[in-house]
């Protein structure tokens, strides 16, 4: 038997070598986690303070009774949530955090709801509370809004911090997708100017099989007006010094913000933008993906059926239009309180815009 020990040592050596090849790490798993209720208790106190100090009434700068009741209901929800958490009904921190997020929304909504009435016909600035799809501007459903492949969208807008809380938020757009919307037959249509949660001001063109997009960080001048212009020209020529045409350009306050060559090629040529089959044009909410919404202000909106030059745009920033200008497709000034928020005729007399849902007219600053 003795001589059989040697092969065993030999094998053991080989197997030890093999065992040494393996590397790895041991993971330790969380099984349970304690919930932290600090946030909910703080929100409870904050709401209580607001409820204790808010003036309820019908005069300017008082709060409507209905809003007060909604905030009081939110207060009860927070209390219930804390109770659930302590009773073990909630097991994950996000459930507690949800209570806090809802409490914040309730407080914001309450604070925005103060009574203030500007008489119809007086000058004012329009704020649309679009978050959670509470408010928007509906420009109507018109083929003309996305039927050209040479156009300029021009508008004045501003926004405060925390103006969006979703992945993306449409400022204004006609985006749609064709009936064959499932990949790989997706058919993208229309145009869109939007903000991204990641911090970008982006525009997109639905060019059939693809979406042409370009982005740059959005201006951080919260509470100040910006003139934003999107220029699309399918026939754009190569400018001196460039090696290619730029079909899509975005200007902010008259300065080129970014430009993009159309590299979606169909049949050897740049793909044109397809008209929106749903024809909708909306502001502060996406016409196709309604969860992409935001809160903000809009002062003026114009659409031109031509590609404006930088010089023309700079001029337009300080020019009023009367609706009779050549190539002007539509134009609105949201600078005067309307009699009826659903009746806002454009300057060309062809279209009407409806201000929908939560919004407020405040004295122009």
């Amino acid at each position, binding site marked *: *038997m003795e001589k*059989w020990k*040697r*092969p*065993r040592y*030999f*094998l053991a050596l*080989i*197997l030890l070598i*093999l*065992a040494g*090849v*393996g*590397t*790895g*790490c*041991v*993971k330790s*798993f*969380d*099984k349970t*986690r304690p919930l932290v209720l600090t946030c909910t208790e703080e929100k409870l106190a904050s709401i209580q303070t607001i409820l204790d100090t808010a003036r309820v009434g019908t005069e300017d700068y008082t709060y409507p009774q209905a809003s007060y009741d909604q905030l009081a209901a939110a207060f009860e929800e927070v209390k219930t949530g804390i109770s659930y958490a302590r009773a073990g009904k909630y*097991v*994950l*921190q*996000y459930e507690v*955090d*949800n209570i806090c*997020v*809802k409490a914040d*929304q309730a407080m914001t909504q309450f604070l925005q709801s103060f009574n203030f009435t500007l008489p119809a016909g007086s000058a004012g600035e329009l704020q649309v509370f679009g978050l*959670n799809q509470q408010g928007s501007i509906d420009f109507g459903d018109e083929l003309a809004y996305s039927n050209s492949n040479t156009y300029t969208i021009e508008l004045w807008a501003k926004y405060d911090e925390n103006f*969006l*809380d*979703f*992945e*993306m938020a449409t400022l204004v757009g006609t985006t749609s997708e064709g009936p064959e919307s499932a990949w790989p037959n997706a058919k993208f249509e229309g145009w869109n100017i939007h903000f*991204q*949660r*990641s*911090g*970008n001001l*982006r525009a997109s063109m639905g060019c059939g099989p693809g979406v042409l*997009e*370009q*982005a*740059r*960080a959005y201006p951080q001048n919260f509470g100040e007006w910006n003139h934003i212009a999107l220029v699309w020209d399918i026939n754009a020529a190569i400018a001196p010094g460039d090696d290619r045409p730029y079909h899509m350009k975005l200007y902010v306050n008259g300065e080129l913000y*970014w*430009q*993009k*060559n159309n*590299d979606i090629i169909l049949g*050897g040529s740049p793909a044109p933008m397809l008209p929106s089959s749903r024809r909708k044009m909306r502001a502060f909410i996406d016409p196709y993906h309604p*969860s992409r919404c935001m809160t903000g202000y809009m002062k003026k909106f114009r659409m031109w059926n031509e590609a404006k030059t930088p010089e023309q745009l700079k001029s337009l920033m300080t020019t009023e239009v009367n609706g009779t200008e050549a190539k002007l497709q539509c134009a609105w000034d949201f600078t005067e309180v309307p009699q009826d928020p659903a009746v806002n005729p454009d300057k060309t007399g062809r279209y009407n815009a409806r201000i929908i849902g939560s919004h407020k007219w405040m004295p122009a600053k």
Partner: protein
Amino acid sequence: MKLAITARVGAVLLMFCCLQSALPVAAQTTEQSATIKEIRGRIVNKENQPLVGVSIVVKGTDQGTVTDQDGRFILRAAANALLEISNMGFANQELQVAGVTGAITITLTESDATLDGVVVIGYGSIKKKDVTGAIASIDGKSLQKAMTSDISQALNGRVAGVNAIKSSNRPGAGFNIEIRGVNSFNFSNEPLYVINGVPSTTGMRHLNSADIESIEILKDASSSAIYGSRGANGVVIITTKGAGRRDGFEINYNGFAGLKAAARIPDMIGSKGNGLEYVDYRVALWTNKYGPSSLSRPDFLTPEEKERVRFGEYYDWSREVLKTGMINNHNISASGGSAKTSYTFGLGYLGEDGIVGREKFDRLTANLGLEQRFNSSIKMGFNTYASKVKIDEGSSEALINAYFIPPIVSPYDKDGNLLFRAQPTSSKVNPLMDMQNDIRQRDETYLNVMGYLEVTPIKDISFKTQVAMQYDAYTYGTFKGTMTQAKAGVNPAEAYKGTGSNMNWVWDNILTVRKQLGEDHKFHFIGLFSIQKDQHEAAGMRGDGLPYNSDWHAIQTADQITDVTSNYWESSLVSFMGRLNYTFKDKYLLTVTNRYDGSSRLAPGNRWGMMPSAALGWHLSRENFLQQADWLNDLKLRVSYGLTGNNNVRHDVTQTRLAMSRYNFGNLGINGFGLGGEIGNPNLKWEMTSEWNAGLDFSLMKNRISGTVDVYKRITRDLIFERRVANVNGYSSYLENIGSTSNQGVELGLNTINIASKNFTWRTNLTFSRNRNKIVDLYGDKASDVANRWFIGQPIRVIYDYQFEGIWQENEKDLAAVLGKAPGHIKIQDVNNDGNFDERDMKVLGSPNPDWTGGMTNTITYKNFDFSVFVYVRKGGLYNDQFTYMFTAWDNEHWNKLDVNYWTPENGSNEYPGIGAVSLHTQVLGHVSGNFVKIQNINLGYTFNQSAISRLKAKQLRVYTTVQNPFTITKYKGFDPESIGENPYSNLSVMPIMYTLGVNLTL
């Protein structure tokens, strides 16, 4: 991970220990035999110097030993046994044990060659010493030891210059073989397979390694030129075991059985029961992507999902769908013969389960060979090989769905029944149900029959006429029931059935002349006249809306029958070939080959092509100036040049096909025919490949180091290329002979005897291959074609995309913002520094061709034990991998992701973007390196001494155990770095680890 590896090592240990513990008993038995004789001796060369590593084997068995540093050996063998003594560079000797008394000294005389072995080179064979081209061989034993169900896989790392690309790890999945890179853009780059003399394009899946005598790979043009218009991609010559035995009778059984399990399982977030990790991920994803308020949406977590979290009920889906499979392989063969007749017969069965769902591979093989020698001048015989293969490919999408579905989803309802829509918030269905209703089966039949008559009317001249036929047929059926991902639980079932067959006839007439003039001049001439005809037909139909589950056997019951097709085509080839091997003074070798092929695939006027080649060999070691170099046993220099063609073009490339359209006239549908999208070109001629090859065969240090080095450059011209044109003439493309590609590289094969002592030997076999593929020209203007991603000076296949440079970090926020990015986004290189990211910033990042590949087999013997480890290495290569891309880039709110180092402000990862960051350019995450080191095969065997098995009347008995794929070192996040790029929706598969126990018994 550590647990898994420990378990794996443990399993290896257990299997080996089981084997080992069984052996001492048997070994003790060997000690008791009285008929055993111990032979002691010393082996020397003619200068009386000891020879190290000389092999002494008991004939007909694996039992043997090798000489130690002093040339000594001790061997115990039966008194009536015959010993075979062999060493590289020396002539073999045989020794009758009965005649041995006391210690003996054996003097080996140097032979003319490093190896006296014979190499099959097509239409004949020559001694290895006379080879002038780059030819690699692998014998049947090595193939069997590799234990791969498809022989193709065994070539990787064992044969330099061959790259077998695995499409999937599903049982029966095919391989694409590339020899010295790729040449052609539009047509196949597969080599020509010649199975028992019949040219074939059906690969090697149907072949049983136990039936293979040898495989020769003709790599350079001078070798493959013998197959002329079909040799440009190299030639794989497969010789099955034929009748050749001239005395006695022998039965051999070789079989093994084993278990298969997953070797590597990509870790997903929350796998292995860590469900809270997944919940954290989902909170982060929704918060970052949709904002904190989105967590209040009812679909963030369903009530059932919340309940599971509450009670810690988590499912590791990727492991839920896996199972342990069985593998069984049994081969029995018999061979025998007399002075006049030789015969062989074999049967084999391989049954290999997959480890997901229904996946399975079954193969039944049979071979029969007979040779009758009427007299010294006439012999005739036949060789038949038949194979029946059945492949159950398994569900298309079950495995990928198991990766999509997160751990907080249960496959079962409250009563324990399988759910179809296990996750109501997702489109992905329960893979456990999908795999029951998504069936894909392939039945294949192969028959290879070859008969010959050989006449040697006068000495030195023989004539052989050989008729061979290969028939292969397949039936492919698919059934997708309603309860599958494809049918979404609502659409009616669909079935498809396709059938096809190929018949290939070849008649070869071969004249062989072997003549020696004096001592110095040796001639070996082969002349060939060959005709070949191949016929192909196929048909298929699809039925939508089947009323009941009938697989694909009642398509006529479907609501709608579509995709009805049938086709037939044939082609033929006539060839004349001559090859002359001339040897002068056994030092200088010359091979000249010329083949003249005429193919029906090209139009008259261009059908015939001449493909000449020439090669020179020089045995330097036999020159006087090297005679004194004792350290040098053999050194041969080879140089060759040749032209070959590529017949792998469509049979109708010169013709314009009519395309059928369906028109409606009133209520009638009318077929109309018009010009198709592609116009034929009657002026097409052969794609021609020219190749230079230089090689060195060497043997040093008393043959302890031997090997081969080859360098080559191959250029393919007149590529048949699809040229796109504006669709104004009614067609959008036509084929043209334009373009040129090149391949150049180096190959190394090295064999060493590291240790050779009385009881212990250690040998190493090493291969190394490096190939550079380049496009030389496309359209005659040396301009690249960016649209098709073809670039002059780059390989045919490239990854052309943005260069990944990491992740934007918090401290780069301002710069990122200027470029439209944010921390956590993917950072790509702004190649032209214009501040924009567009196609001008794309560049060639790499190619899915490895920089080099290598294989190393270490074989250790200790007394009767043998132990071998095979390691396969691939370095370099950039691949586009859908699996990695999908599961690191996609931020679907309900699916799972790979558990990798995603960016957070705290960790500052530079590898993967932030969760829910909505980054652009995510496709760069799918670019993965092809580097890996695989310990692919560990084999431990024990050969019983003859005395121990004599009672069984056995000549040889070896038991062995093997582990396949025990360890893989790679950064690849998917299953198997060797099959990167699997189609995730049809072929995603798991690399198996396989443990087997086997027996090899010869009676």
